[in-house]
């Protein structure tokens, strides 16, 4: 779960990391009230989950109430990377003496969380890593043996800080480490971490992503509500049914699969053989009759879908139940699309029998590729053009 900046800052503040004074608002009137408490000038920061906010003009300044109302209205009319701006964070304007970077993310090589500090704050850290790797200082974090303050200090010293400032930054970084583990984050980033003209150390931005699997026990993060209408309606429907579904624009072949790997491989095969996947869908570990039916309904509703590949295994799941789910949808909707089912595993004979009764094409012992070829042939019969891709 990605957090909005204001949510992330609330968690960081609880972990002892100083953040600028400010509050989140949904309209100009509230903004003026917050600014009255803060004193002008203030900063207006669009609250969006996607990146590129700065370049998109999503951060503004206001020296007085009139400017604030004007800028707030402008920002609230903005979309950034397709995401509507619905909330603004109004904050005191900082006088920046120095911009640093501090972040923790999982290192794919060591599979350990890795602390990263850089004196080049404000820049994209991937850019720093590639262009000036010598300016990125890293420390692997063993969850069973977290570094003490002195080790953090050694890292911060390398980043060129000294004395009281160094100590304050090191303390903040140690709190960042605590926050990462306390809130079960996947990624946490403060970019920039500011030292202001008064020598205060402040998290001027906050990017947190909390592990979805931990939300059951991460009450604070779980309390941050998300409006599902931010999602595509079909994605929202899938999410409600706990189905992993990603919609792709301009596809013509829908997909119901059990297992992410099989789903991705199916998409690859569809592409290789001239189709364009319209969606990714993974039923996951618990493909009951109901969930299989729900998944098929979502794919049938996916715009542009002319053929559907259903690619399932009765491993954890059971072919008979899954076949019943498919049959239930077919009987109710009599969909016009071409459908090919490849399914084997536990109770496969019972499952096949159910589908055969509905005259659905079944690939019993063949491969995914054979199933894709069969579906593509059916689409061709119907005069559907491929995308021209040949992989």
């Amino acid at each position, binding site marked *: 779960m990605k957090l909005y900046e204001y949510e992330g800052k609330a968690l960081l503040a609880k972990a002892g990391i100083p953040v600028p004074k400010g509050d989140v608002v949904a309209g100009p009137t509230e903004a003026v009230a917050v600014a009255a408490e803060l004193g002008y000038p203030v900063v207006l920061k669009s609250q969006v989950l996607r990146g590129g906010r700065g370049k998109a003009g999503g951060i503004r300044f206001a020296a007085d109430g009139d400017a604030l109302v004007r800028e707030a209205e402008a920002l609230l009319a903005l979309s950034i990377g397709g995401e509507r701006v619905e909330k603004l964070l109004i904050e005191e304007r900082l006088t920046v003496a120095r911009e640093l970077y501090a972040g923790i993310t*999982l290192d*794919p*090589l060591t*599979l*350990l*969380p890795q602390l990263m500090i850089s004196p080049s704050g404000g820049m994209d850290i*991937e850019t720093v890593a590639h262009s000036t790797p010598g300016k990125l200082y890293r420390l692997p974090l*063993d*969850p*069973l043996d977290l570094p003490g303050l002195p080790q953090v200090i050694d890292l911060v010293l390398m980043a060129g800080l000294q004395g009281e400032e160094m100590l304050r930054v090191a303390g903040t970084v140690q709190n960042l480490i605590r926050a990462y*583990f306390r809130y*079960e984050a*996947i990624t946490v980033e403060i970019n920039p971490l500011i030292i202001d003209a008064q020598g205060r150390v402040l998290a001027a931005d906050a990017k947190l992503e909390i*592990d*979805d*699997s*931990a939300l*059951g*026990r991460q009450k604070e993060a779980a309390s941050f509500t998300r409006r599902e209408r931010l999602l595509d309606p079909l994605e929202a429907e899938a999410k409600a049914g706990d189905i*992993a579904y*990603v919609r*792709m624009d301009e596809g013509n072949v829908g997909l119901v*699969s*059990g*297992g*992410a*790997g*099989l*789903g*991705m*491989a199916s*998409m*690859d*095969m*569809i*592409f*290789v053989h001239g189709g364009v*996947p319209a969606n*990714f869908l*993974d039923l*996951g*570990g618990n493909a009951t009759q109901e969930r299989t039916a729900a998944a098929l309904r979502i794919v049938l509703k996916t715009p542009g879908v002319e053929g559907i590949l259903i690619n399932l*295994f*009765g*491993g*954890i799941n059971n072919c008979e139940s899954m076949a019943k789910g498919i049959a239930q949808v077919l009987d109710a909707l009599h969909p016009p699309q071409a459908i090919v089912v490849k399914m*084997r*595993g*536990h109770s496969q004979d019972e499952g096949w029998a159910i589908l055969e009764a509905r005259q659905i094409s079944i690939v019993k*012992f*063949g*491969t*995914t*590729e*054979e199933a894709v070829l069969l579906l593509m042939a059916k689409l061709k019969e119907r005069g559907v053009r491929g995308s021209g891709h040949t*992989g």
Partner: protein
Amino acid sequence: MAILVNGDTRVIIQGATGKQGQYHTMKLLEYHVRVVGGVTPGRGGAQVHGVPVYDTVARVMKETPVDASMIVVPPAGVLAAAIDAIENRVPLVVVITEFVPLHDALKIRGMARKAGVRIIGPNTIGVISPGKSKVGIMPGFIYGEGPVGVISRSGTLTHEIASNLTCQGIGQSTCVCIGGDMVKGTDFVDVLELFRSDPETEKVILIGEIGGAGEELAARYLQEHPYPKKVIAFIAGATAPPEKRMGHAGAMISAGFGTADSKIRSLKEAGVTVVESLDEMIRQCR
């Protein structure tokens, strides 16, 4: 021989009394696995399909040695179950459970390494040495005995490859699903190392996915330690859009790292036969 599991492997099932646990206890018994006990705290003294249930791993080990554990408890209980197995030095622990919190997986991995315990998973269908034994939840009958070793992040792709091979009369020595999560106990390199010296394994299939660095690390390993067996690889997700999460927690592509391209390129440089389709894989195994 095979690797990791064979006919002698004594297996316990942590979570045996749950719905999944009961079902897979039965399936293991049907596959003639030597199931020596179930473990469910608070249910010591019960039985599941004739298998005695104990309160803790230590209690089982008072009665019988244990070679492997299969964990099928709900996500919130995985950490405690894994610690139980690790503290009691069960050599092989297969964590089937999906949606294990990342930070629990980090702890499990760290503790297991310190204790010298091998973890497979989490989020895996497990390990099968067809015809011999399995510590996993795969339907045994779609797997056949033979000379091909399989390593895969994806459970269903393991099924797909193995069942395709079996239909074509090509059996497998051992199929290891290392699991779909970012943080896992065992990665491609570890299993390649095991297959290296297994006399029953003649070729190795490596089924990768976008995201993570396991395939790149496998490529580096193969380049640095010349491998005596043919390795054939397929990377799923070449056509997946970047920055979208494709179900598997480990499959996110971010900032150019872990792309299908980088994986395919590095594997090819290491001398691996990288195929573009699953059918091509079958042909390469002939």
